[in-house]
């Protein structure tokens, strides 16, 4: 299973992405965090059938991808599993609601189809925005930003450790599947009879390692604060960024740009 090794590598690549230099990387973590949260809230607030109004929200991720130099394809590749899951959410809508909403020539589009597409778009947009935050901001800086806005220590600690734990666990899965494969040649995947012990082992091993990792942090003075995180300097640029983004979101939410453009064409 080279898949799992690829997954381990991809996780590490996120760390590398987050340390590149670009105007987006240079923004203050708090500014990026605030804008990302605002973007997600605005995006989710669109109605089920407002596909035309929702679509222009693509501008934010599109703009941020090009500004940060991070490839949307890379994003899609890394998020493939999550994307599939998000898209699956709306899959039954077309079956449940077949009432025709509009007709484009001979093509009848039902309410269900529209709400499915709207849901998918929302999912893809929100995932992209979160990915951009994660790929341009080291996890410790995100945690530092959360602490700055007084998110409780325990929650932030959990977030950080979960992030670290996931990479430890993926590492362990890679090691264990290799060990398994070597002793079960020609077998695809892990036989179902071995799943129980495999999972048990995995949990024990990764918890042991996570404990060691957390110990290592404590031994070097970690107490749930992030003075060591690279926070950049907050500047006028950050304020402008937040302000402009918020104004754009409000504009896109209140003015139906999709219909306006549509009206111009028809």
């Amino acid at each position: 299973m080279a898949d799992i090794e690829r997954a381990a590598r991809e996780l590490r690549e996120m760390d590398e992405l987050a340390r590149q230099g670009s105007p987006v990387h240079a923004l203050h973590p708090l500014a990026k965090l605030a804008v990302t949260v605002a973007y997600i809230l605005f995006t989710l607030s669109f109605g089920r059938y407002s596909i035309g109004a929702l679509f222009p929200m693509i501008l934010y991720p599109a703009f941020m991808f090009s500004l940060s130099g991070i490839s949307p394809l890379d994003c899609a590749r890394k998020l493939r599993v999550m994307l599939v899951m998000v898209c699956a959410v709306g899959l039954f809508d077309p079956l449940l609601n077949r009432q025709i909403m509009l007709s484009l020539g001979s093509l009848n589009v039902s309410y269900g189809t529209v709400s499915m597409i709207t849901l998918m778009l929302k999912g893809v947009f929100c995932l992209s925005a979160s990915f951009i935050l994660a790929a341009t901001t080291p996890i410790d800086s995100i945690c530092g930003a959360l602490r700055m806005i007084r998110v409780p220590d325990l929650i932030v600690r959990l977030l950080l450790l979960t992030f670290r734990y996931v990479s430890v666990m993926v590492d362990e899965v890679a090691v264990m599947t290799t060990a398994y494969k070597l002793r079960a040649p020609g077998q695809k995947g892990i036989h179902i009879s071995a799943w129980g012990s495999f999972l048990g082992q995995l949990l024990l091993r990764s918890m042991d390692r996570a404990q060691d990792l957390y110990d290592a942090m404590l031994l070097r003075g970690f107490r749930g604060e992030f003075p060591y995180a690279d926070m950049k300097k907050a500047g006028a640029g950050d304020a402008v960024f937040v302000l402009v983004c918020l104004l754009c979101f409000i504009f896109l939410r209140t003015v139906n740009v999709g219909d306006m453009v549509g009206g111009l064409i028809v």
Partner: protein
Amino acid sequence: MIRFENVSFSYEKGRPVLSDISFEIKEGEAVGLIGANGAGKSTLMKIMLGLLPAEGSVTVDGLQMSKENLREIRRKLGLVMQDSDDQMFMPTVFEDVIFGPVNYGLTREEAEKRADEVLGSLGITHLKHAYNHKLSGGEKRMAAIAAVLAMDPVYLLMDEPTSALDPANRRLIINTVRALPGAKIIASHDLDMIWDCADRVILLSGGRIAADGPADTVLRDKALLEANRMELPLGLQRR
């Protein structure tokens, strides 16, 4: 001074890993901690660092092991872990090396200066901006040592510093450790390394201290070592 007085510990009830251990380690001493697999070397170090709660009394420079003193005690002790992968939790060497100093109150600039000094003294300046997961085993061990030295510990604790290293890297680590000033406590099966690096040796066996004395005496005691599943250091065999 690190002082253990009648320290006992068990992970599971009824299976003591350490029983009634007492010893003292003075500032500046280089002590080798030896014993077979499972003798309790790593456990002893974890107790010293307050990672495991033990019976008996542990003091470091007069500070009794307790919740209030923990931070100050840990500041004096630097542990190089058995597995560098667990120790290097930040993505790059640089971030890892400044982690400790900044958490203990240095500014990033001061910490960077400290990092540069330490990396320079270990001869690994070129690794400063390397990603930890792309380092070789030897480089990773050197980086882990740098991260601990950057905290300027009074006592340096090393758990199996030469395990899983090729001969050249092993030699590099040995020479590095030898050259370090200050107190060192080194747990290892690598008796040649202990021979090179330690003045005093503590031998753990069956949860007790089986021997505690000058390296020159303990490491030459063939019968004692063999009774504890170890061999004379190679350097002493050809005679």
